[in-house]
Structure formats: structure tokens, C-alpha cells
């Protein structure tokens, strides 16, 4: 918007300006002009300008001086600064030209208040030049006969104007052309100057506002010369190994200037210069012999010069030139040390002698060879052995003992003083104490506490401890009066060094004292890899390996174990760095844990990989506490089942593999009543004499039949039942089960059980020889044939004789035949039998007891209750049997009858044979 108005105003201005002009003689003539025209004004001065209107314009446009408006650029100058001198002249005054700017215009306010420009001037504002200061000149020698002089000065403040500087110079009687600077305003170079005549030099600065001159400088150019440095240096070695002669050429004539010199020198590789004393080179010369140099050393020389009286400037240093001094014999013997290896043989050492090559300033030349002399110190030792070697070590096999090693270095000029090393048999002298290290200034400082006795010198051994390389020993000597030194070697940061300090005496040596050190530590390269050794319900045993030396990067100060569950906070445990195992406790069972481990040095730690483990659901012994009882219970159940099955084997056998008698193999035909007589039961006969054994009747009662017995019938048995309940129970488990069996079955079963207890007078109904059925061992037993087939005649007759039609009658007949006592008892055979046992004599009881014991022994897994009841019952029986007879049950068992005497089939036999034969 503002710009648009400006353009409008500018267009109007042009139009009015055009209208204000009149054409005269073909030239455009202004209606007025300003005096002065384009002035150059000093900044800060006052200034007055006049605007003079042409007379011709007065009539043309009724323009007068009182209508003049002064403007600076587009800014109107305040009217207070105007002054109307007459009707055609107006002046404007500025007290300070700093408010001025270009252009300054004279304008007129014409009719209609239209502003019309009459004239304008450009105003240049600046400052007059200041007096140049600090004029100084120097004459540079650029060629042998060319001496340009360069003068510099301070031109002063900026003048804002075009200011010209001129360097003016003259002799008193002669002027020279000015030196005009090019492109600069503060220096100028006069191409050539003449010496020995005073030259007056000054600077003149001039611009539109004035002129200024510096103070003149009067000088003889010879006093400000910076000569060219000497050239063509040459360095020659002299006769002496410590002297070099330097020669050069000066490039300024002695007639012009007498010179003095500075000579500097240094050894190759050194950056610090040494300087020949200036007073030695304060006179003109072209050569100098530098003394006090080291033999066989390459030196670099450089030289400069200046006017002898010191007036002027030093030249630049000349080009460098090198020279080598001649050789001299070595100034000292090499430092020697040893490594003793006694591991191969206790009686012999492998001694590795090693020495340091002499430094160049000690060798004073090229070492051609080393002469090693080994002298045993024992009284019986032979002459010393000498070795000439070119290397810096020598391996010897020596018997244990004390040796003195002497080492001499030879160069072309001569031999060094000998170095002596005493190798004692044992390091029995006082060692150093309190070996310590300290990194300092990028080096590793080793300190120790000296022993009380005088120490000749110390040897500091060190080597880099690493898994990847052997410990290569480096060493250095230190004098006996120090208690600390820097290791002189390439000590690397983050590496472990094993440092050992030995104290050497004139007559022995102290044992080495070692310490490990790092020049600089860092975090470990990796963290320990942790894993579980054992995980329990609430604890886990963590194990890890120590970091290798190369991985440690510093002294491991501690380990920290971090562990957490999946969603839990991390727990940290700090562990001693010597440990490789740690037990985390108070863990949650059956929980996944993540564990990691950090190893810390002084500089920080680094974590190893994460390891996860899950705690167990059950603690130690909990599973056993559950499983064992379960197993035991299971076993017990199984056992009970087995026992049950065993007890019910007959029933099971009957259902699973019933015994089917084979008539063809029936032995009934061979049966003879004398068979029992064959058995020699003399003793038994004695024990159970014919007729003495009360016939036992077995009465089988069907469960349903029990009801058929009246209470009265049962009463007489109550007492006995109470007394023999265990016996009955036992009997029912063995043979007595026949009572509970079916009548038919019980005949066969009870037949055996009861008949075996009967005397030989018991009629054996039949003998059945069984072949092994399936895996059953065939046992020859007596049994009644249960075949339904017609029996043999004798049998049939016997059966017929018995007259029994049904089984019951048969059984009754059978028991009657056996017992032959009371046929009335056939209605209740079991009770009858029991009842008849009661009056049995003591010998019968013994046999019964014997049976009980045997049966007990065969029933290994009998119920405790049964056993107890048996035991409770047995003493009662035994008590009575002992009272009557001396026969002891164990004696019966301990004196079994001989094979000839063994009955073919009888229960006691089978009992003796260790097995209970149910048949």
C-alpha cells in the first residue's frame, strides 16, 4: 500500500517537474539551483545550502522563495532551518552534517499545494584523513644487491571518502618519487634504497576534506635490514667424535654489512633445538666448529644472521643441513637380566640371559658383538666361559649355583665398560615391600618400599597377561636410591600387566614381589554368561565362569545378578567377584525367571546374555512324599489282592481252570487199603497210636443250612468256638475253607485237610496222581475221584457198600468210615469234629500245634490280626503240650524223617517241604 502511494507521488513529481521546465535554446533549464553544488562535507560540521530561483520562473509560475521546501531524500527539512534571504533565495542550515543524506532537494509548493522539485544536490559526507601513525620500515634483502624497503603505517580512522596515501622519502639534498600503495592504504615498498645515507620517510594522506602527514622517520636503511640467511651450508665431521664443522656462504657483502650469527642444532628425531652460544658467533665468519656433540650421532644444523651491531633484524633461519659425528667406543655396558627356568630339572637351570641394546648415545657407534662371560662362584668351578653373540640374549644350561655374568659390548672403536649381573643360587636377600602402581600422565608408575639394607639396583619385570599370548617379559633397571619409576615400554590401556620388582644386592638378590595393574581400565568387553546349576521350588543355584583376562579390561570389582519374572520388577544382587556360584532364594515356584549378570570394573559394567529358567512346582521331597505313599498304597492293595486271590485260589481255579479229573489216569484201581500201611509211621504211630486219635468229623454247613441248626445245637460249641476262633479262621483260610465250600467241593478239600490230621487208620479214599496242569507242579496227592464216570468195581462196591445215594450220604459215610465213632454226628459234622478235638490228648495237640506253626510259616503275608490271634492261641496249646510231652515243635522240624521214612503223601511232609499243598 505504501509502495503504491510512493509510485503515485513519484509520477506526480515527474509530471510537475516537467511542467516546471521551460525550453530555452533547446536545453532543459531548471527554475533554480542549489549552492554549493555536490559538496563534500566533514562529518559533524555545519552546512548551509542556498536555493536560488530563476527570475524567469517567478513570472511563469508565481514561485517565490517563501514557497521553497527543503527535503532530504523524501523527508522534509523542518522549516526552522529555512531562511528566506530574498524573494528568490532560500537557505537551509544544518548544524550537524550527520543528519544529512543524499539527495538534498529544493522544492516549491505551487498552486494547489502541489509540491514541485526545483533542484537537488548530492551531498558527500566524510572525514578528513588522520595523521598516519606508527610508521615503520624494514629493508628485506631479496637478492644479493637488491634491498627493497617496505614501510607500514596506521592509516587512522575510516574517512568515508576516497583517501590517497603516499609514502614520501628523500635525502637531504635529493627528493625521490613518492611510493604509492597498491590496493592497500597502510604499506608501500620502495624498490631499492641506498645505505649509509639518512633517509627521511613520511606518509601523506589526502582526501577531499584535507591532507595529513605522518611524523617523518629519518633513518639509514642499513639499520633496518633483514638480510637473507646464509646459504650453501655444509657439515663436516672432524677428527674428534664430538665435533662437527659447519661452513656457509653469506649473501650480503661484508662491505655493506658485517654480520653476526646464530647456529642451532638438534639430533635427528628430536624437535628441540640447541643453540651455540651467541657470543661464540658474534663476529663475521663463514664457518664454525660445534663441539660437545655425541659420537656417532646425526645432527641437523641451521644458521641465521643479522647486522653485527644488532641493529636491524635477524634473517630467517637457513635451510637445514645434517651431519654425523664419528664413532666412539660405547660409553656404558648394556643392562643385563636373566630368566631362570628350573622346571625341567631341579639340578639344572635354563638361564636365559637378556640385555638391552645400548641406546645410540650410549653405543656411540654400531655394536658389532657382545661378549658374555659366565663365571661360577663356587670354589670348585673351572675357568669362566665366554660367549660372543650378536643378539641380545643367550640361553645357557647351568647347574644350580651362584654365577657372575659379565657383558661387554664392542663397536668398531672399542669395548664398553663391563656390565655385571650376579645370579645367586637362591633369592635369599630382603625383597621389596608394598609394590604398588599408579597410572600417571599416560604412563604406568610403579612404586615400592625399599628394604632396610642397601640395594644396588632394582629390576622391574613386567609382562602383558593375556589368554591369547604368552607372558613376554620386559624389564628395566632402576638405581638403588629410587623407590618408584615409570615403566619404559609400550604399556597399552585396558590390558593387565603383571609387574614384579626385584631388589639386587652386591652379594645376592631378593625375591620378586608382584602386582597386577592396568594403565587404564574400561568396562568389561562382555558380561558373564550365567546359567543354572540347580533349580528348586524357591531357589536356584546360578553358576558362571570368570571372564577371561582379555575380556575383563580392568579389575573385576563385583558381579551383579539381575533377575526378574516376566512381569515383575528386576531384582539386583551384588556378588563377590571371587565367586562363581550363587543361590537365588525366595523365588516363586513354577515361575519363569530371566536372569543376567553384570561384571563391574572401576569404569563400569557390562551385562552378559539373559538366561531363563523356571522354578519347580514341587520342592525337594514333596513328590516323594506323595508318590511313595501312593505307591505303597498301591502295592498294599495289590498285595491284598494277591493274598485274596491266593486265598481264593481254589475258587478262582475252579472258575478259570477247573480240574478235570482224567479217569484214564485214575489210580483208584491201584489203590489199596495197605497204602497207608506202607507209610512207616512208626513214630507217628507212636505218637498217634491206633485208635488213640479221635476221629475228626467235618461238618460242612451251607450258609443257608445254618438256620437249620437250632440254638440248642450250637450252644455246646460256643465255648470252643470262642477258644478256637482263630484256629477256625486259620483253618478256614487253609483247609477249613471247606466248611464254606460247596458240599461236593468240600469233600475233596476237607478230605485232605482233615485226613492229614488223622491217623494212619484213616481210610484213604483215593490217590490221584496229577500231571502238571499248565504250570502246576504235579503232586501226588490222595484225592477222591470226582469223576462222574462209573468207578472201578472195587470202588463201586465200596460206594455201593456205603449205600449213599446222594452226596451228602456219601460224605456222611465217608466221615463215618474215617471216624467210625458216632453216626449220629453226621448231621453236624463240623461241630462234631471240633467237639471231638477237645478231649484229644496232648500228643495230638502237639501235632496240631506243629501244623499251626507250619501253616503260619507258610503264610508269610498273613494278616496281622490272624498272626496275633494265632500267637495268642499258640502258647496256650504249647503250654499244655510241653507239660505232657518233651517233643518240641522245632525239634520235629529240625529232625525230618529220612527219605525212606518219608511218607508218600501226607500233609506234614508237604509242610516240611516248604509248600502248602492245598490238595
Amino acid at each position, binding site marked *: 500500500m505504501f509502495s503504491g502511494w510512493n509510485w503515485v507521488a513519484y509520477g506526480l513529481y515527474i509530471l510537475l517537474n516537467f511542467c516546471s521546465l521551460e525550453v530555452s535554446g533547446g536545453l532543459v533549464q531548471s527554475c533554480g539551483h542549489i549552492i554549493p553544488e555536490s559538496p563534500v562535507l566533514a562529518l559533524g560540521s555545519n552546512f548551509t545550502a542556498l536555493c536560488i530561483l530563476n527570475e524567469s520562473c517567478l513570472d511563469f509560475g508565481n514561485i517565490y522563495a517563501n514557497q521553497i521546501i527543503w527535503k532530504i531524500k523524501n523527508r522534509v527539512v523542518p522549516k526552522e532551518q529555512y531562511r528566506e534571504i530574498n524573494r528568490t533565495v532560500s537557505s537551509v542550515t544544518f548544524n550537524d552534517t550527520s543528519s544529512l543524506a543524499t539527495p538534498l532537494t529544493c522544492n516549491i509548493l505551487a498552486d494547489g499545494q502541489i509540491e514541485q522539485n526545483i533542484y537537488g544536490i548530492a551531498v558527500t559526507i566524510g572525514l578528513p584523513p588522520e595523521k598516519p601513525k606508527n610508521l615503520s620500515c624494514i629493508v628485506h634483502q631479496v637478492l644479493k644487491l637488491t634491498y627493497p624497503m617496505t614501510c607500514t603505517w596506521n592509516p587512522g580512522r575510516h574517512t568515508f571518502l576516497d583517501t590517497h596515501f603516499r609514502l614520501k622519502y628523500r635525502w637531504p639534498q635529493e627528493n625521490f618519487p613518492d611510493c604509492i600503495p597498491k590496493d592497500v592504504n597502510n604499506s608501500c615498498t620502495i624498490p631499492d634504497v641506498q645505505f*649509509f645515507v639518512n633517509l627521511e620517510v613520511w606518509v601523506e594522506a589526502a582526501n577531499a576534506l584535507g591532507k595529513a602527514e605522518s611524523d617523518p622517520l629519518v633513518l639509514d636503511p642499513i639499520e633496518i635490514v633483514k638480510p637473507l640467511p646464509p646459504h650453501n651450508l655444509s657439515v663436516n665431521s672432524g677428527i674428534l667424535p664430538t665435533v662437527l664443522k659447519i661452513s656457509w656462504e653469506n649473501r650480503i657483502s661484508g662491505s655493506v654489512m658485517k654480520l653476526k650469527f646464530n647456529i642451532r642444532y638438534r639430533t635427528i628425531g628430536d624437535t628441540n633445538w640447541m643453540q651455540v652460544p651467541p657470543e661464540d658467533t658474534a663476529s663475521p665468519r663463514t664457518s664454525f666448529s660445534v663441539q660437545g656433540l655425541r659420537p656417532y650421532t646425526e645432527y641437523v644444523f641451521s644458521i641465521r644472521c643479522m647486522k653485527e651491531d644488532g641493529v636491524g633484524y635477524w634473517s630467517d633461519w637457513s635451510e637445514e643441513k645434517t651431519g654425523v659425528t664419528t664413532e666412539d667406543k660405547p660409553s656404558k655396558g648394556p643392562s643385563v637380566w636373566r630368566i631362570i627356568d628350573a622346571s625341567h630339572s631341579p639340578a639344572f637351570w635354563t638361564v636365559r640371559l637378556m640385555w638391552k641394546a645400548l641406546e645410540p648415545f650410549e653405543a656411540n657407534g654400531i655394536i658389532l658383538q657382545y661378549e658374555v662371560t659366565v663365571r661360577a662362584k663356587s670354589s670348585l668351578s673351572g675357568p669362566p666361559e665366554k660367549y660372543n653373540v650378536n643378539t641380545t640374549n643367550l640361553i645357557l644350561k647351568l647347574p644350580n649355583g651362584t654365577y657372575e655374568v659379565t657383558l661387554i659390548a664392542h663397536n668398531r672403536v672399542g669395548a664398553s665398560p663391563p656390565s655385571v649381573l650376579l645370579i645367586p643360587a637362591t633369592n635369599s636377600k630382603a625383597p621389596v615391600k608394598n609394590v604398588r602402581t599408579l597410572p600417571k600422565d599416560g604412563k604406568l608408575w610403579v612404586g615400592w618400599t625399599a628394604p632396610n639394607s642397601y640395594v644396588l639396583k632394582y629390576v622391574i619385570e613386567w609382562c602383558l597377561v593375556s589368554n591369547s599370548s604368552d607372558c613376554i617379559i620386559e624389564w628395566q633397571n632402576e638405581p638403588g636410591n629410587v623407590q618408584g619409576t615409570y615403566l619404559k615400554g609400550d604399556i597399552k590401556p585396558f590390558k593387565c600387566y603383571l609387574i614384579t620388582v626385584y631388589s639386587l644386592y652386591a652379594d645376592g638378590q631378593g625375591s620378586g614381589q608382584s602386582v597386577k595393574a592396568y594403565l587404564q581400565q574400561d568396562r568389561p568387553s562382555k558380561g558373564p554368561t550365567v546359567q543354572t546349576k540347580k533349580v528348586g521350588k524357591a531357589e536356584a543355584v546360578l553358576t558362571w565362569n570368570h571372564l577371561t583376562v582379555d575380556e575383563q579390561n580392568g579389575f573385576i570389582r563385583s558381579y551383579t545378578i539381575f533377575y526378574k519374572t516376566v512381569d515383575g520388577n528386576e531384582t539386583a544382587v551384588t556378588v563377590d567377584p571371587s565367586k562363581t556360584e550363587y543361590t537365588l532364594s525366595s523365588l516363586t515356584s513354577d515361575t519363569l525367571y530371566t536372569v543376567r549378570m553384570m561384571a563391574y570394573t572401576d569404569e563400569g559394567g557390562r551385562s552378559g546374555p539373559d538366561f531363563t529358567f523356571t522354578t519347580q512346582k514341587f520342592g525337594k521331597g514333596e513328590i516323594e512324599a506323595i508318590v511313595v505313599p501312593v505307591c505303597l498304597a498301591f502295592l498294599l492293595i495289590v498285595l491284598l489282592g494277591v493274598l485274596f486271590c491266593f486265598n481264593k485260589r481254589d475258587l478262582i481255579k475252579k472258575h478259570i481252570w477247573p480240574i478235570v479229573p482224567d479217569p484214564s489216569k485214575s489210580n483208584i484201581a491201584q489203590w489199596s487199603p495197605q497204602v497207608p500201611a506202607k507209610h512207616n509211621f512208626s513214630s507217628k504211630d507212636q505218637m498217634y497210636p491206633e485208635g488213640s486219635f479221635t476221629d475228626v468229623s467235618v461238618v460242612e454247613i451251607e450258609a443257608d443250612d445254618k438256620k437249620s441248626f437250632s440254638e440248642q445245637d450250637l450252644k455246646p460249641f460256643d465255648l470252643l468256638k470262642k477258644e478256637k476262633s482263630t484256629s477256625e479262621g486259620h483253618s478256614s483260610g487253609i483247609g477249613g475253607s471247606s466248611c464254606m465250600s460247596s458240599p461236593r467241593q468240600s469233600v475233596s478239600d476237607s478230605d485232605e485237610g482233615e485226613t492229614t490230621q488223622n491217623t494212619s487208620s484213616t481210610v484213604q479214599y483215593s490217590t490221584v496222581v496229577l500231571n502238571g496242569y499248565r504250570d502246576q507242579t504235579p503232586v501226588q496227592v490222595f484225592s477222591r475221584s470226582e469223576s462222574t464216570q462209573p468207578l472201578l468195581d472195587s470202588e463201586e462196591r465200596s460206594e455201593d457198600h456205603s449205600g449213599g445215594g446222594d452226596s451228602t450220604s456219601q460224605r456222611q459215610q465217608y466221615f463215618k468210615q474215617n471216624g467210625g465213632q458216632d453216626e449220629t454226628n453226621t448231621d453236624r459234622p463240623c461241630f462234631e469234629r471240633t467237639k471231638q478235638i477237645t478231649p484229644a490228648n496232648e500228643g495230638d495237640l502237639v501235632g496240631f500245634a506243629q501244623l499251626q506253626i507250619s501253616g503260619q510259616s507258610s503264610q508269610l503275608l498273613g494278616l496281622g490280626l490272624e498272626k496275633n490271634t494265632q500267637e495268642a492261641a499258640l502258647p496256650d496249646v504249647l503250654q499244655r503240650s510241653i507239660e505232657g510231652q518233651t517233643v518240641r515243635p522245632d525239634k520235629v522240624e529240625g529232625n525230618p524223617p529220612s527219605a525212606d521214612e518219608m511218607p508218600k503223601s501226607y500233609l506234614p511232609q508237604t509242610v516240611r517241604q516248604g509248600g502248602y499243598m492245598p490238595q
Partner: protein
Amino acid sequence: MAAADSPSAALRRRDLCSRGIRLAGKMRSDVVDLLDTYVERQGLDASASVAAVEGVPAAAVERWDEQTGTQRLLENLAAYRAFRVLLSQMLEEHREQLGEADAALGRALASVLLQVSAFAYHLEELLRLESRGPPSEEGAPPPPAPHLGLFERKLRGLGVLRELAQWAVRSTRDLRQLTKPSLGSGLAPSRAESP
């Protein structure tokens, strides 16, 4: 004489002598170098014999040791004023002949000319210290440049430079003679000194 007796005047005189000696030495050195250059550039034979240059006092003089200091200074001043004119002529001729083609020789001539002027200034100053003042140059107008051929001009230039070299040596001796404390201004030099 009063000025000559003052300590500052003595120091000034001594300084002028000292620097004059060194200027003469440098001038001789430069002239010798210039002679070599001149002979080479002008195609002359270094062993060419040249007749004495007209207007230049001979450097060789009999009874040199009998001269007074002022006398020495006056003879030197006359000689160097003559050399100044001659060298200016040579320089002009050189510029006319070669323009800027042989700027080195021209610069060397200009340099020697400046030194001659400087030495003349020294002599004038010494004469002023002798309370005598230098004779005006108008009294001894420079000889007009003879119309000579090119070769003759070269030979003449060679002669000027040779004579200047000799004068440089003599001037050195003269000034040294002046610096001796036994020698006051205008006093007869000791006979022991001879050029």
C-alpha cells in the same frame, strides 16, 4: 670552527665519516659488479685500456698523505660531482640506447648514481662541519657531453666506472684518514699514512 669543536659536531663528523667509509666500500663493491655487467652487456673487453675520463680528477695523486682533510674532501667532492654528471649521462644514454630492454644494467647504474650522490652529500656535510661549506656546483659546471660515437661512449662509460672504482678506494682511505683523532680539520696528515 665552533661547530667543528662541539661534541655533537664531532659525533656527527665521525658518523658521517664512518658511514661514508662504508658507503664508499659498498659503492666500490657495486661498481666492481657493475663493471663486470657493463663489460658483458656492452660487449667490451675487460682488459681494454681506456683513456682518462675528462673532467674527473685522477684518483691517484702524489703526496696523498700530505693532503689536508679539507683538501681531501674537496677533491673527493669534485670527483663525485663529476661522477654524478657522468653517470647521469651514461644512464640517459643507456635509456636512449636500450630503453627498458636491459633494466638490470639500468637499475645498477641508477643505484651507483644514487650512491655517488649520497657520497657527495656526505662530503658536503663534512665540509660544512669543517666550517667551510661545500663549493657551489655552479662554480664548476659539468663538462658538456662530447659528441661521441656509440663505441666511444661505451669505452667512456667503462672509463668512468673504472675511475669511480678507484675513487671509491681512495675515498675510503681519505675518510679513514679524516677519522683519525690526531687529524683535525685542515691539519697536515702524518707522513706515515700513504695511499
